């Protein structure tokens, strides 16, 4: 059987099937820089696309699994062992220093998403977003509400460097009540459950980011220094199905 005609056109990311195929090439790393930028803009907000990417990562594991395992030399573990001890103590104190390139990439991604103009959603159903900023007003994390308000998805833009033993906690405040939602990740994507009592008021909740010790209690009275706080904003036109 002869091959279908050759492909020359780029992926149409407004088409679901095309998006799924693009996810495969995103994992394979064969998208052009332009396709990749558009794809990543969608990826930052689309839970479905994130799932597609993960599914392709699993599919393409078949390539890794086909390799015959090779034992590394015994000396290697010793070298790693020597490095993890100082690595646990030697973090610098470079706080909240993010590059302007990250900021630019984020702005480009957000602009691309907004320009795609998908069908408008009822504002009650729309995604709500909060961008956790550094003191320099650079984006560090994106906090996204799920459509049913039962979860928050946290997408790392650029993690802040923290001193050893310190973490960033995400809190929600409704009225005078607080809930500690989770620890912000250093990279990647993470999903947090939203407590039942907040869900109906989630998009009105205030988001608070504090710096706390890794073993600290989740008692709001003992909350560490607050480095950012604000409100969700509706992202009307989001095509995310969550």
């Amino acid at each position: 059987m002869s091959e279908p005609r050759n492909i020359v056109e780029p992926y149409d990311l407004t088409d679901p099937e095309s998006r799924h195929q693009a996810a495969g090439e995103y994992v394979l790393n064969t998208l052009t820089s332009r396709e990749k930028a558009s794809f990543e803009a969608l990826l930052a907000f689309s839970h479905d696309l994130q799932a597609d990417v993960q599914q392709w990562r699993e599919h393409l594991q078949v390539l890794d699994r086909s390799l015959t395992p090779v034992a590394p030399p015994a000396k290697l573990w010793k070298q790693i062992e020597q490095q993890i001890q100082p690595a646990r103590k030697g973090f610098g104190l470079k706080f909240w220093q993010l590059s302007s390139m990250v900021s630019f990439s984020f702005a480009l991604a957000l602009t691309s998403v907004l320009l795609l103009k998908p069908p408008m959603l009822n504002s009650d159903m729309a995604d709500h977003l909060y961008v956790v900023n550094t003191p320099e007003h650079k984006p560090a994390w994106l906090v996204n509400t799920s459509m049913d308000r039962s979860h928050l998805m946290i997408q790392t833009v650029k993690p802040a460097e923290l001193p050893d033993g310190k973490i960033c906690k995400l809190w929600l405040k409704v009225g005078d009540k607080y809930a500690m939602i989770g620890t912000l990740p250093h990279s990647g994507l993470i999903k947090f459950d939203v407590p039942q009592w907040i869900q109906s008021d989630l998009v009105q909740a205030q988001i608070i980011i504090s710096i706390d010790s890794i073993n600290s209690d989740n008692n709001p009275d003992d909350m560490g220094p607050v480095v950012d706080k604000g409100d969700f904003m509706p992202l009307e036109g989001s095509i995310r199905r969550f």
Partner: protein
Amino acid sequence: MKFETPDPNQLQQLLKRCQQQEPKALKALYKATSSHLFAVLLRILRNESHAEDCLQQVYLKVWNSAGQYNADIARPMTWMNTIARNQALDWLRRYKNDRLNDSDDVLVYQPDSKSQTDTIAEQWQTSTQVHKCLQELKDTQRQCIELAYFEGYSHHELSERLEQPLGTVKTWIRRGLERLKSCLSPAI
């Protein structure tokens, strides 16, 4: 030497303990997974010494980011293989750039020549268990996907290397991915 397939549940537990910075957990994780990750690094870098250096970096990254692993999103080996592949491809790009910048003693990445390390790596990588779904791909499709996955080739680079029009290469990749997906989907 016999290599066992790592148990995902055990790996998840070890990653949790790495998050608590338990060196013994990293050691157990290394014991269970290093031969698999080293094979990936050798396939990409084709140089034993560089694969060793890279493997160290991979486990340091795993150690420092174990807290970010989310079992709801990825299987442990997928997460670790992704770290290894990205680390090796970054390494490869850096050395390619160094080479272009006239460095004399960097990793010599020569897909068309047979250095001694290439031969060793190829011997190691002669797999006897090629997945049936990879066997279902046409040779051209599999070659393109493997070159892109393991060696970071772009469409244009594939087109040049294989001396085929860009559209042909794109078609091979898309059709290959579709075929791979339809073969693998029922199993995942």
